[in-house]
């Protein structure tokens, strides 16, 4: 009797699984019959889905598919016209006149005109709206300060000449204004104040917002009246997958079409041949460097000490050992794929003997007399500081200890110039090398966390900000970079290689230095 009982149980068990499998297969097949959306993942809920308060990376991935600026980038990383067909600098680069594209329809069905440009800029500057990342680029526009102080609600520096022409006047020269990644919004969405635009889909991009199920997904649908290459997929679903490993598993199970692989899962992807074959790689537009604050540690004041430190780092070993080979040694402070990159600059070569000699010449033979120092960073950079500390101790016998600090406090301390020795990075906000040089190494920049100052470098940057001609400006970047590296103002470390996975039936995906391009170029066979 017991034997029969068990057998019946097993049969029922098998039947249950079979039923579940059939059910699953039926549901899966039914999905295929509906709209074919491109499925990808994001690591967290976006902080916001409007372009005004937009202030973080995940939101940017989504917004880039819905909103556009004056210009856009090609798969090769070059600038091309988007909502502006052409532009002309005002005398002395104190502004620009933009000729806008005609016949562009927004998601709300209205035609995009110069009024929308003005309305978007004003929305970004009104203090109550809590304007995010894009508001920073408007500081250079005439009248911006008055708006931020709440004295007025209109931006004096923006003049609507006619529906397709807008002139923007600056309070100081800025040649890069056209490449700033603005997200223009239909002005009618702004009518309701912050409440209105927080949930509207009012862009000109190839996809429009459909819904956001918090914790689950964000769904976009294709914009049928898009002015450019219309999307061939019906929409995009960004599934929220906090765990990097789960995202890769979902890709393997064909539940995702495209995945941007986060740090934690890179090793698995590189070690699995089937996944490696399906991967796309591109260097990220992100510099990494070793900051040495001369104000806080006396030996850093000596150029020989800094040179010794840079020469004792074996970046190739670090890349193979701790980064799965997914990085390149960085030569300067502009990365490949970003305008102004100097391909002829070579990374600082590993030279242990040379480094030891330099340190001895500087008065610290074999690390003697060097006060103890801590190299600090946040938890995700733990391996990196471990490597640096052990390498410096081994080669130079430098008294370095490691310190892992919580992110919020660390960034605050760095911004205040209180961290003596730290590896950090910086991602490009717009596609031009000026971003790195002016934000991280220009003397007065608030983000010059190592507090490195060089008058010649600063003069070159200021001149570059007034040089509209691209080639001439890039030459100035090169000169400035050579000074930075020649003086060993920092040790450039690595540039990360991004990895993305795409299913074999997905075509047309573009992974650039700036993550994915909008998905309207993607088709699923």
């Amino acid at each position, binding site marked *: 009797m017991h034997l029969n009982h068990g057998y019946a149980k097993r049969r029922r068990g098998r039947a249950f699984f079979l039923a579940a499998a059939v059910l699953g297969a039926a549901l899966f097949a039914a999905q295929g019959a509906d709209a074919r959306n491109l499925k990808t993942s994001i690591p967290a809920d976006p902080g916001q889905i409007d372009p005004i308060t937009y202030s973080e990376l995940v939101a940017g991935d989504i917004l880039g598919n819905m909103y556009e600026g004056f210009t856009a980038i090609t798969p090769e990383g070059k600038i091309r016209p988007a909502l502006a067909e052409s532009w002309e600098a005002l005398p002395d680069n104190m502004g620009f006149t933009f000729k806008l594209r005609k016949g562009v329809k927004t998601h709300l069905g209205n035609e995009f005109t110069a009024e929308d440009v003005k309305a978007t800029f004003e929305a970004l500057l009104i203090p109550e709206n809590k304007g995010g990342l894009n508001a920073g680029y408007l500081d250079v526009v005439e009248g911006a300060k008055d708006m931020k102080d709440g004295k007025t609600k209109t931006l004096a520096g923006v003049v609507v000449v006619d529906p397709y022409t807008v002139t923007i006047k600056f309070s100081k020269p800025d040649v890069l204004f056209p490449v700033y990644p603005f997200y223009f919004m239909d002005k009618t969405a702004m009518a309701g104040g912050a409440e209105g635009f927080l949930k509207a889909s009012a862009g000109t991009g190839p996809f429009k917002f459909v819904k956001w199920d918090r*914790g689950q997904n964000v769904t976009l649908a294709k914009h049928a009246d898009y002015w450019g290459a219309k999307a061939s997929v019906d929409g995009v679903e960004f599934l929220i997958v906090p765990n990097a490993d789960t995202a890769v598993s*979902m890709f393997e199970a064909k539940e995702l079409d495209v995945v941007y692989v986060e740090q934690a899962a890179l090793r698995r992807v590189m070690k699995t041949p089937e996944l490696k074959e399906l991967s796309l790689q591109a260097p990220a537009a992100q510099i990494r460097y070793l900051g040495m604050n001369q104000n806080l540690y006396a030996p850093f004041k000596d150029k020989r000490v800094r040179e010794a430190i840079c020469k004792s780092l074996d970046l190739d070993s670090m890349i193979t050992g701790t980064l799965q080979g997914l990085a390149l040694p960085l030569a300067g402070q502009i990365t490949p794929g970003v305008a102004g990159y100097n391909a002829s600059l070579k990374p600082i070569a590993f030279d242990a003997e040379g480094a030891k000699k330099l340190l001895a010449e500087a008065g610290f033979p074999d690390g003697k007399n060097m006060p103890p120092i801590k190299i600090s960073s946040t938890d995700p950079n733990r391996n990196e500081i471990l490597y640096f500390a052990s390498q410096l101790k081994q080669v130079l016998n430098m008294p370095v200890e490691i310190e892992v600090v919580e992110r919020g406090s660390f960034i605050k301390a760095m911004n205040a110039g209180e961290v003596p020795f730290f590896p950090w990075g910086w991602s490009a906000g717009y596609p031009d090398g000026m971003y790195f040089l002016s934000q991280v190494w220009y003397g007065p920049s608030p983000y010059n966390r190592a507090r490195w100052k060089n008058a010649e470098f600063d003069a070159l940057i200021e001149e570059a900000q007034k040089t509209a001609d691209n080639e001439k400006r890039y030459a100035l970047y090169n000169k400035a970079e050579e000074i930075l590296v020649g003086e060993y103002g920092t040790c450039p470390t690595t540039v990360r290689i991004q990895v993305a996975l795409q299913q074999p039936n997905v075509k047309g995906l573009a992974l650039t230095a700036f993550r994915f391009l909008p998905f309207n170029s993607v088709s699923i066979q």
Partner: protein
Amino acid sequence: MLTFIVKRVMGLVPVLLIAVILTFLANQAVPGDPIAALLSDRSGDAVLEARLRAAYGLDRPLLEQFISYIGGILSGDFGLSFRFAQMPVSQLIGEGLLITPLMALAALAIAFPLGVLLGTLAAIRQNSWVDTGIILVLVAGISIPNFAMATGLVYVFALQLRWLPVAGWGSVEQAIMPLTLLIIPTAAYIARLSRTYMLEVLRTDYIRTARAKGVPERVMLLRHALRNTMVPLLTTVGIILGGLLSGTFVVETIFNIPGLGSLAIQAIFARDYPVTMAIVLLFTAFYAGINLLVDLSYGLLDPRIRVGGGGR
């Protein structure tokens, strides 16, 4: 009975108050300033920092913040999230509220009878291969950490056999693996206890008497033996629920389930104090509530323990 219930419910208030105080203090003690986390790269902007601090009321003295928080809770307002601009915490939590406690209770509802069944089976066939076999399974179920089990389940059922989806929430198939992961250790634990209690009960005099009287084995088991193991077993339900709730933290993160567990983890990393505090309070209330129900149920099972009255 009614006075008893009222007294016990009132007893929850100091428990919850202590929970709030402890969480509040813990959040303050943890290194990291939520405004610094919010500002991130822009933390050099003193004007912006001052504005944000004032907007969230973080520039007031601690005691004042605490009191205004308590006042808010009493009216259902748990404040605004630090992470999502303008989003009330109650809205964020409302979405997860339907998922996590339901998952925990569903897991308990399946694990409890399953565990009792396995434990009883092992007890009545003590030292036979049935007993040994079951014990091995139980030890594995309790010892293997849930994230290791999760990887194994996902590998076999989602990637190799393709029977179940890897992650997500909304369909029946998506609930199978997460629930299984919660059920296994719970059922294993209950089975172990159940087996021990059953062995004890089976040795008692009244069971021997019942057997001698000729009571059929099945009736004796159900009517007499099982009933007597229920009281100690139910006591553990409270503790088990605590384990289930913390189990949901891991399970929800692995399977992308938008419940309170994954929300809590994300909130902790983002220094989103209002959300963490609200979730701690909710879990405490839920846990205390279940324990109260368990206490009340004793009276139903064993007339000798009519709480508040006689046999104490």
